[in-house]
Structure formats: structure tokens, C-alpha cells
């Protein structure tokens, strides 16, 4: 593989960080302020996109920012896996920014400058995680993301958000300091390096006990992946304004968690070693457990966002499960699911937010008949649900298909059943919402027939992401190609 | 060195220390502490440490005791009897003292015997000082030459320590505005006795003359800047004790006193700095021969030592006065004790 020194990954990270300054300075002029967000978003997306052809040609882009310790640097590298993730998050940032404008102005929220600033910082850290060339850099951006999202999660500054913020930090910061940091140090002590390697930099060492402990520490340590029992922060964090939940808890934050686990499995341990030590199964069972339980809990939730949250927990474990299968098909299924789920889930969150802006309703039981009032939103909701469930013609079908193939390839029949069962459960907790929204008698309906959608700034983004979800069914090539390149298939 | 005397004095010292700690009346404790210090002087003279003894006489038995008495007069004279609630502290103190004692005894068993001429302490560095003091500095009193030249840097900071103490006492105690909620009563008439006043008035000039002698003759005999400075300060304190504080302040006001204190240490450090300006290391007096008329580098060291000793004396005098004035008047600069 060819390696090139290139500053573009750093620029891609910095652009939104630098944008904070003009955002803060133009806090008195909202239109200009949001203009900066868009400019930064578009520059960021173009920078990321501009690297796609190079990466597809098999070039690896590297850039060392600073040598912070002897033998340990803040170093960025663009490989197919990271690029795919960066592509997803940077494109969705633009969409989410548009949606944020509609949502925040629609609700006349306070402290919008702070909101947009931290949003930009959070995006920088997400891209940073995607482009990290070593564990230390990844940890750095991971922590930065945790902290940057705290003000977003607690945006309302009331007692509920205070409590949720506390829970959020307790889980996220607690596990990263309590598990990842020592695990990282022990790895460093064992291997003398933290650079991600194709076969994992720990592959030389073979003590099974140590490896098991380390793997478990890493998997739980990246609690943003919300593997049970470290999932509690995710539903709590739903107090945040919906765009935050949408981007951060469907795309950036949670996907950073699973992406990190992916990186750990491929770059730190190496699939070969995990396979020979049979450690993949351990993680796979943890994930399977989370999938089933989360889906069951989701069924019982009435708050729409809470239901989505538990659905997310389950879906994240799909990705972890894919990684833990250690088979090429399963892993590429997991990787692609990062993208597919992102578009599907963000649509769902956007819809939830749009419903809230338009009707101030949060609970599913209050949404009977809402399809007549907000048809566009609810059709988008349907598409999003289908993608998350894994039904054609949406992108989610592909990733789930690969996951299923992966379980067969890995001879994990139990996991196959887990996947199928959970798909049924997914259908069971999503489809009734849509059904009730459209098909109900006039008495049951809680809304009058007049069409009254949320502001266009809300509706346009969610339609767009829904359409992308469908498009990904027909054109999944880019993501599939990247995933296969990443896994060397 | 007669070890029998040594033994006897030491035993007395222990007795004094014990009673100073135990006695209930604080004034007696302070006086016993003075006696403790005087016995120490005796002991040290007997061991050949005349300079230390001189200093202890002036400081430990002299001004320290006065400071303590002044403080006692300003606070309360007797210890309140109290047995309850102190058991914990007594236990801690006893435990700490016992452990320290045992550790020290353990280490002591390895010491070379007392007064052994071949012990490392007597054979490693000190022979150099004893044999070179005349040729290096032309100062026969080895203590003076080591104090102000070989280890002159220590002594500069020693002076700085006393200066620091003076400033610290002023900083903590000085009351610039009258504080009406003052606890200690200050309005009782100071004790006055014509006999004491007359005698001390006659003595002050002689004391001061003696102090100057001690400073100037430090090269050849016990004493030096520090002892001389304390004695000078003590002469003012005597005035303060026999008359009242205002008569001291008339002679040595607050401002001049502070300036003297600064000037003294500044003189010391300044002489060192002049050495740098002349191209040598800090406090390397030998280079002063370039600016002092008709001196070679050895005599320059001798003169340098005299210079810093004068600085020390000025600083110490001023600071001793400052501490006494502040303690005895509670920082108010009124009539004092």
C-alpha cells in the first residue's frame, strides 16, 4: 500500500474547530452565524470527499501533528475504514445543521451560539476519531468528543438535563478513564507502540488471559458503543435537543464507540489472533445479549425518542456483533451498517423532532393519526424504520444481509437466530407507529385532517436522508467497496 | 575539655528543660528557659565553641527570653489546668518522641566517640579551614573566616532569615489603624523605677561601645556581626524595658529602623554583587583588592569579611528592635510593656 504525507485529514478536522471562532464572534447575528456553520460543513465534506479517489486507489494518507511523547505521536491516517465513517458524519453534519436551524428557531431555544459552537467541536472530534492513526490519538479525540457533547446534552440546563448529563459523563468518562486508559497503557507496555497495524500491534503477545482482560476492557471502555450494562447513558441523553440526539446519538457519538471497537479488533488485536484465541465469541455474545434485551426494552417504551434510543442500543450491537464474527462478510456487514444505520436512524430522529416542533408531542400513544397531519414526515419515518429493520428497498437491507451471511460464514448459528429475532422485534416496535399514524378511524385520530408540517428547515433534511436511505439500496457500491478494502477482502 | 563538668552541666540542662515544659506559670517557664540557654552557653564554652556560646548568651538567654516575656505579658501569664481532652495529643506527642528517640539511639550507636580527634567530622573538611584561614583570609578566628567567607553565602541567607523574621513580625502584628475591639488591655501604666532607669541609662553607651568592639574585633576574638548586632539591639531593648517604648522610638523610629534593616542585608548582598561586577564570582572578596587601596587579595578578603560583618550587625540590630517593639506593644507602637 502506498503511503503519502498529506495535510488534508488535519484540515478536515480543524475546519470545524476553527469555525468556532467566527461562530462565537457573530453570535449577535444568527443568519451569519449559521452561515459559518454551513461553510465549514461544506468545506469539511469536500475535504473528506476529495480523499475518496486517492483512498480508492489504495493510497494511505498520513500526517503527524505532534510528537507528544517519545514514540507516541498525535498522528492522523486516512484508510478506507476511517474514510467511510468520516464521509458519513461529515455529510450528515450539513444536513443536521440545516435541521438544527429549523428546530432551534422553531422552538426559540436559548444559547444557540453555544449550541452551534459545541456542535462544531463535536464534529471535529468525530472526524478525528475516524482519522486516528494510533490508539492514543483516538483516545484523545474520543475524550474530546465526550466533553464537547456534554454542553449539548445538558443544553436545557434544568434539573433533568443536569441529571442526565451526570449520568452521561459518569458512563462515558468513567469507562474511558477506568477501562480504556489502563488497557491502553498495558498494551503500550506490552507492545511498545500504539500504532494501529494491519494485524494488530498486540499480535506478537499470546497470553490468553491478558488478551481477554484487555479485550473486555476495551469493549466496555468504549461505552459510547452502549454495550450492556454500559448503555444507561444513551436513553438518559435523550433529554438533549433532538438534532443533538439525531447527529450525536445516531451518528457521531455512538458510532464513534462502535468504530473504536472495530479499530481495536482490527488494529490492536488483529482478527487472526482473536480467531486463534477464540475471543471473538466472547464479544459476540455480549453483543447478542444487548441486541435482544435492548429490542425488548424498546418495545415497552412509549416516549418516541426513548424507543429510538433503545433501538439504537440494539443496532449498535449489530455492528459490534459483525466485528466480533471475525469473518470477512460479517465484518463488512458491520462496517457498512455504520453508514446504513446512520442514515436510517437520523431520519427517524429528525422525524421525532419534527413532530415535536409541530405538535409538542413526545409520546407514541399521542401520535395516533398523525400521518394525516404530517404525511411527509411520517413517510420518511416509514423509510427510516424499514432501513433500520433491514427491509428492501433501503440501505439497511444490505448491511443486514451481509451480517446474516457472516454468521453463516462464521458458523455461528445462534447469532443468526439472534439477528432474525431482533429483526422481527424491530419490526414490532416500529411498524405499529406508522400504522397507527395513517390507519385509524376518525374517532381514534388525535389530529384534525389539515396538513401542517414542521418548518421547511426541518422537513427538507429528513426527506433528504430518507431518500439517501433508499438510494443506498441501489447504489451501495462506494460503501461496500470501502468496507471491503478496509478488511482487505 | 573536662568531661565531668560536661556531665554535670548536661544533667542540669535536662532538669531545666523538663521543668520549663512542666511548670504551670509561663513567666517562670520563660525564666527557666533562659537558664536553660545559659547552661547551654556554659556547655559550649566548655566544648570550645566560644562563638556559639557567645551567640547563645546574646540570643537564647538574652533577647529570646525577653521576647518570650514580652509575649507572655501581652497574653496570659499562666497555663490553664486542663486534663480532659488532651489525652489524644499527649499520646501522639509521647509516641512521636519515643519513636524519634529510639531511632536516634539506634543511629547513635554507630557514631564515632565523642570528641574523637580522628572522627570524619574532624578530619575531612575542618583541617583545611584550620590550616588555611590565615593564608587565605588573614583572619585568625576560624569561625569568622568560615562564617563570612568560606561559607559566606550561608551567612548571607542567615541574615536574610533574620530580616525575613523582622518583616514577618511587622507584617503580622503591626496595627496601622486603632482597633477598638482589641482584647488585650494596654492602658495600665508601665512600671517605672528611677534606680533601674538611671543605671540603665548609664550602661547603654558602654553596651553599645562593647557591641562595636565585638563587631570590629570579630576577626581576632569570639564575636562578630551577629553577636554585636544583637547586643546593639539589646541596648535599645534595655531602654524600652526601663523607660518605655516611646523613648526607644524617639531614638530609632520605625522608618529609620526598617531602612537600617534593609541596608544591613543589602550591604552584605551588595558586597557580593560588587564582586560580580568586578568580574569574580559572587562573594569572592579577593577581587575587592582592585578597588580598595593598598590591599592584596588576602587582605581584601579580610576587609570584605569586616564589611559584611558590619552589614550583619546593622541588620540584626534593627530587626531585634523591630521584633521587640512589635511584640511588646502588640504592633501599636505605643508605650509598650
Amino acid at each position: 500500500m502506498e503511503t503519502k504525507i498529506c495535510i488534508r485529514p488535519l484540515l478536515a478536522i480543524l475546519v470545524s474547530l476553527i469555525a468556532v471562532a467566527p461562530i462565537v464572534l457573530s453570535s449577535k447575528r444568527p443568519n451569519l452565524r449559521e452561515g459559518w456553520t454551513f461553510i465549514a460543513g461544506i468545506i469539511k465534506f469536500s475535504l473528506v470527499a476529495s480523499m475518496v479517489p486517492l483512498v480508492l486507489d489504495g493510497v494511505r494518507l498520513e500526517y503527524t501533528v505532534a510528537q507528544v511523547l517519545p514514540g507516541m505521536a498525535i498522528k492522523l491516517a486516512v484508510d478506507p475504514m476511517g474514510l467511510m465513517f468520516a464521509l458519513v458524519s461529515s455529510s450528515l453534519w450539513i444536513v443536521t445543521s440545516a435541521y438544527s436551524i429549523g428546530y432551534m428557531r422553531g422552538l426559540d431555544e436559548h444559547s444557540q451560539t453555544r449550541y452551534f459552537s459545541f456542535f462544531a467541536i463535536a464534529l471535529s472530534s468525530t472526524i478525528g476519531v475516524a482519522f486516528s492513526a494510533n490508539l492514543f490519538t483516538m483516545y484523545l479525540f474520543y475524550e474530546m468528543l465526550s466533553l464537547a457533547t456534554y454542553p449539548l446534552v445538558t443544553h436545557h440546563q434544568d434539573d433533568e438535563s443536569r441529571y442526565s448529563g451526570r449520568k452521561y459523563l459518569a458512563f462515558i468518562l468513567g469507562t474511558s478513564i477506568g477501562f480504556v486508559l489502563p488497557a491502553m497503557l498495558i498494551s503500550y507496555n506490552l507492545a511498545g507502540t500504539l500504532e494501529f497495524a494491519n494485524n494488530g500491534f498486540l499480535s506478537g503477545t499470546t497470553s490468553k488471559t491478558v488478551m481477554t482482560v484487555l479485550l473486555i476492557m476495551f469493549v466496555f471502555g468504549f461505552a459510547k458503543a452502549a454495550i450492556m450494562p454500559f448503555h444507561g447513558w444513551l436513553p438518559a441523553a435523550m433529554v438533549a435537543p433532538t438534532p443533538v440526539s439525531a447527529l450525536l446519538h445516531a451518528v457521531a457519538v455512538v458510532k464513534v464507540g462502535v468504530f473504536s471497537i472495530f479499530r481495536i479488533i482490527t488494529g490492536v488485536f488483529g482478527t487472526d489472533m482473536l480467531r486463534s484465541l477464540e475471543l471473538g465469541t466472547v464479544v459476540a455474545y455480549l453483543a447478542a445479549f444487548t441486541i435482544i434485551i435492548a429490542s425488548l426494552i424498546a418495545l415497552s417504551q412509549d416516549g418516541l425518542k426513548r424507543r429510538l434510543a433503545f433501538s439504537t442500543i440494539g443496532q449498535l450491537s449489530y455492528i459490534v456483533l459483525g466485528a466480533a464474527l471475525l469473518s470477512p462478510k460479517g465484518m463488512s456487514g458491520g462496517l457498512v451498517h455504520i453508514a446504513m444505520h446512520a442514515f436510517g436512524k437520523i431520519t427517524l430522529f429528525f422525524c421525532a423532532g419534527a413532530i415535536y416542533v409541530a405538535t409538542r408531542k413526545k409520546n407514541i400513544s399521542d401520535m395516533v393519526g398523525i400521518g394525516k397531519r404530517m404525511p411527509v414526515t411520517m413517510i420518511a419515518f416509514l423509510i427510516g424504520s424499514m432501513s433500520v429493520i433491514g427491509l428492501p428497498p433501503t440501505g439497511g437491507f444490505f448491511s443486514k444481509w451481509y451480517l446474516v451471511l457472516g454468521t453463516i460464514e462464521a458458523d455461528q448459528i445462534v447469532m443468526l437466530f439472534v439477528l432474525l429475532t431482533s429483526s422481527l422485534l424491530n419490526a414490532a416496535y416500529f411498524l405499529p407507529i406508522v400504522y397507527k399514524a395513517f390507519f385509524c378511524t376518525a374517532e381514534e385520530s388525535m389530529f384534525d385532517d389539515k396538513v401542517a408540517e414542521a418548518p421547511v428547515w426541518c422537513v427538507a433534511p429528513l426527506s433528504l436522508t430518507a431518500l439517501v436511505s433508499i438510494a443506498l439500496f441501489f447504489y451501495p457500491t462506494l460503501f461496500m467497496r470501502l468496507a471491503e478494502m478496509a478488511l482487505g477482502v | 575539655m573536662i568531661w565531668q563538668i560536661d556531665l554535670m552541666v548536661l544533667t542540669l540542662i535536662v532538669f531545666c528543660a523538663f521543668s520549663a515544659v512542666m511548670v504551670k506559670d509561663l513567666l517562670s517557664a520563660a525564666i527557666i528557659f533562659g537558664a536553660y540557654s545559659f547552661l547551654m552557653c556554659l556547655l559550649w564554652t566548655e566544648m570550645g565553641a566560644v562563638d556559639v556560646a557567645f551567640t547563645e548568651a546574646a540570643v537564647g538567654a538574652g533577647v529570646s527570653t525577653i521576647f518570650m516575656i514580652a509575649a507572655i505579658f501581652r497574653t496570659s501569664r499562666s497555663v490553664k489546668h486542663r486534663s480532659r481532652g488532651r489525652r489524644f495529643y499527649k499520646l501522639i506527642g509521647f509516641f512521636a518522641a519515643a519513636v524519634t528517640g529510639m531511632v536516634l539511639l539506634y543511629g547513635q550507636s554507630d557514631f564515632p566517640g565523642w570528641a574523637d580527634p580522628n572522627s570524619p567530622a574532624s578530619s575531612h573538611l575542618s583541617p583545611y579551614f584550620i590550616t588555611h584561614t590565615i593564608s587565605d583570609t588573614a583572619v585568625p578566628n576560624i569561625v569568622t573566616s568560615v562564617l563570612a567567607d568560606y561559607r559566606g553565602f550561608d551567612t548571607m541567607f542567615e541574615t536574610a532569615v533574620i530580616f525575613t523574621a523582622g518583616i514577618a513580625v511587622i507584617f503580622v502584628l503591626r496595627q496601622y489603624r486603632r482597633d477598638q475591639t482589641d482584647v488585650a488591655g494596654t492602658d495600665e501604666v508601665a512600671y517605672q523605677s528611677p534606680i533601674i532607669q538611671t543605671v540603665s541609662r548609664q550602661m547603654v553607651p558602654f553596651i553599645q561601645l562593647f557591641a562595636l568592639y565585638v563587631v570590629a574585633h570579630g576577626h581576632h576574638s569570639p564575636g562578630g556581626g551577629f553577636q554585636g548586632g544583637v547586643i546593639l539591639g539589646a541596648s535599645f531593648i534595655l531602654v524600652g524595658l526601663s523607660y518605655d517604648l516611646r523613648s526607644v522610638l524617639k531614638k530609632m523610629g520605625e522608618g529609620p529602623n526598617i531602612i537600617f534593616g534593609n541596608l544591613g542585608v543589602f550591604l552584605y548582598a551588595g558586597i557580593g554583587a560588587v564582586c560580580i561586577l568586578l568580574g569574580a564570582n559572587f562573594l569572592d572578596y579577593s577581587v575587592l583588592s582592585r578597588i580598595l587601596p593598598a590591599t592584596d587579595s588576602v587582605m581584601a578578603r579580610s576587609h570584605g569579611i569586616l564589611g559584611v560583618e558590619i552589614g550583619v550587625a546593622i541588620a540584626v540590630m534593627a530587626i531585634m528592635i523591630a521584633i521587640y517593639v512589635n511584640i511588646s506593644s502588640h504592633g501599636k507602637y505605643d508605650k509598650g510593656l
Partner: protein
Amino acid sequence: MISPEQYPVLIVVIPLLSAFIINVIGWFRKGFSYPLIVLSLIITFYLSVSTLLQVVDGGAISYRLGGWPPPFGIEYVIDHLNALVLVVISFVSLAAAVFSKESVKKELPDRIPQYYTLFILLVTGLLGMTITGDAFNLYVLIEIAALTSYALIAFGRDRALVSSFNYVIMGTVGASFYLLGVGHLYIMTGSLNMGDLLSILPAISGSRAIFVAFLLIIVGIWTKMAFFPLHGWLPNAYTYAPTATGVLVAPLMTKVSVYIMIRLMFSVFSADYVFNTLNVHDIIVWMAVAAIIGGSLLALTQTDFRRMLTYLIVAEVGYMVGGVWLANSAGITGAILHILNDALMTLCLFLVAGIIYHKTRGHHLDDIRGLYRKMPFTMAAFTVGALSMIGVPPTVGFFSKWYLILGAIDAGQWGFMAALIISSLINAVLFFKVIEVGYFEPMHGHHDDGHHEVTIDEAPFSMLAPLYVIAVSLIVVGIYTSSIITNIIAHAVPKGL
């Protein structure tokens, strides 16, 4: 005019001389004290930085005071270790001095010149302690630093006097133990020069008296640095001290004591004696574990912000002592790095506490309510300091923790590693508690939902400027950790560990 060879002594002499100048000129014109002290500390800072560069270029420097050769005279030895500490001291004291302007004016209007005289004498003492190569000279300077800090603390509020008195007692015990230890060394070797002692001691390393000397010196220094069972005097003394004193004393005193411990362990007794002959490091590491956990837990129970910080100092001392006694190069590197890093972090947080006190007349947690709205700049800097204490990269706190934990893994001291992790977690709880109070709770007198605009009421520039310099340096120093370690600290770690 003055050659760079003289810089080592000037580092100490310039502040000493300026103490007198400040005192005399201040007697006539109070207003001159502040510019004078800032000026002299700038010069000192410049001198110590250029000394550090000299050392980095050409190795250790020896300076003979009075021109006498060691061991007869007093010698200054500046190697990589103390050159670094000198820069830390002069930098921190400069920042503290710049900061002190408004708070001294407000809290001690009567005694500004005396305050600044003591202030700079304290700096002199700390610099002298760091630079000297003579065991007895060190004692004298310890006492200068101690006497000044007694007085500087005594004039604080509430129970400052009583805590200062306790400090006098404990400080004197500590210094006297040190003096006794030096006496034991002297009786056994006849020497006071550190280099000379280092060359004599191996021959008599089996002696009981040397062991007692070591014990006395270490316990003395531990008392001074408030190592865990001996920490009782510190929290009260640092909590009630005047603002400017806290800002100067809290970051420096314990750190310089840790430096002294390292200096004596390796430059007087030798690493071989300390780690191989004595073989006590397990016990001491466990004491450090107790210090870290105990300090952190006690900090957790506090409701006063500054008091909380003082307990954290106790915990941080445990970091450094434990790191040194891990007896491997990663641990010692971490400990030395932490001297620098912790000085900066503590300074940052005490500056914030000082600003809060200046603006609200208190530093109880209640006084912090709503400050994120009222003083966003101060609180932003506070957040950086807090993150550094927690150990979030790329702030400095992460890197020293990194080395300390690596050292713990190397030495197989899992307890110490766990203590470091737990203390990070406790710090996270602690600081987010403060952040929550500042961020969520409305200010006094604003019992509505708090969503209206609060006018920003920030501290004066002379307070914010040093705060921001420090907060930025928390990150910049973090990023340059690598060059600090390879150019400076790597040379300071004893060879052969």
C-alpha cells in the same frame, strides 16, 4: 556586562536584592512595590530560562560561591533537573505576582510593601533551595521559605492564624529533622557538599547512622511536603491564606519539596542505596497509594472549592512520591514531569479560586453558582484546569499520569496504578460537581429559570492575563511533552534503573 556564567547566582541574588529595594521604596511609595516585583521576577524568569538553555546545551553547571572550591565552599550545581524546576518556580511566581495586584490591594491595603517583600523572599528561598548543592545551605533556605510562608499565610481570614501556627510547629519539626539528618551525615562523613557526600557515602552505606540520616531527612521533607500521614497542617493553611499567597504557595511549596526529595535521594544517597540497599519502596508506594486515595476522598467531602483543591494537593504529592519510589525510569520521569505539570495545574485552579474570591468574596461551592454565565472566561480556563487534573489529553495532566501508570505497570505495582485511575475518576466527579454548580444553578438572587441574559462581569485584566497564559500553557506544554522529556527529564533520571 555580566557574563552568563554568573546567571546561576543572579537567579537568587536578583530577587533577594529586590526584596530590600521593594521594602525601602515601598515604605515611601506603596504603589511602586507591584511594578518592582514584576520587573524583578521577569528578570529572574529570563535568567532561569537562559540557564536552562545553557544546561541543555552544555550539561550541568557548577558555580563556586566566593570562589572557593567544593567541598570547602558552597557550590551551586545546576543540572537538567533543577534547571527545569527553576524555570517552573520563576514562571509560576511571575504569574502569581502579576495576578496579585488587585487582590493584595483589596485584602491587605495597609501592608503592601511588606507583603511583596515577603513574597519575593519566599521566591528567593524556593529558588535557592532548588539551586543549591550544599546540604546545609539548603536548610537555611528552607527556613527562609518557611518563615515567609508562615507570615504570608497568617494574615489570611478566619482561622488563618491558627493554621499558620500549626504550620510553624510542623514546619519547624520538618526542618529540624532535616537538620538532624544532615548532622548525622556530617558526623559520619565530615562533609556537607552534596557531590562530596555522594562520593563518600557508598563506602559506609551499611552504617546505621546513615540509615537514620536518611530516615530523618526523608521524614523531614515529607512533613514539609505534606505527605499523607503528615499532611494535617496543609489544608487549613492553604485554604485560609490570602488569595495571592495561596496562588504562590500552593503550586510551589509541595513541588519544590518533592524536588528536594528527589535531589537528596539521587544526588546525596544515590539511587543504588535508596532502592537496592534499603529496599523500602514497596511500603512507600503503598503510603503513596494511601495519600492519593485519602486525599481524593477527603477532597470529595469538601464543600469549599479552595479547600477541596488543598486536599487534591495532598493527593498529588502522593502521585509524585509514589512515582519516584516506583524505582524505574518511567515512574521517575512521571514524577519529575508532574512537578512541572502539577505546578501549572494547581496554579491554574488557584488562580480561578482567587478570581472567584475576588469577585464574590467567597470560594464556597455556593459562590460558584451561575458563574458560567457571569464569568465565562474564568470558567473556561477553569474547565481546562479541571480537565488537566482529571487527566484528559492533550492537557498536561494526562502525560504525567501516563508515565506514572507506565512506571506502575513496569514495577508491577498494581495498587498504585489502581490508585491513579481511581483518583482520576474521583477528580472527574469532583470537578464536574463544581462545573454542574457553575453551569446549572442560578446565581444568588436569581431564582427564576435562569434563562434570561446575565451581564458578563469578569475579573480585571491583571488577573485574567496570567490565568489565560497558564491555561494555554496547560495544553501547549502537553503537546511539547516529548521534547521536554527527551531534552531535559531524560537526563535527570538516574542512569541504570
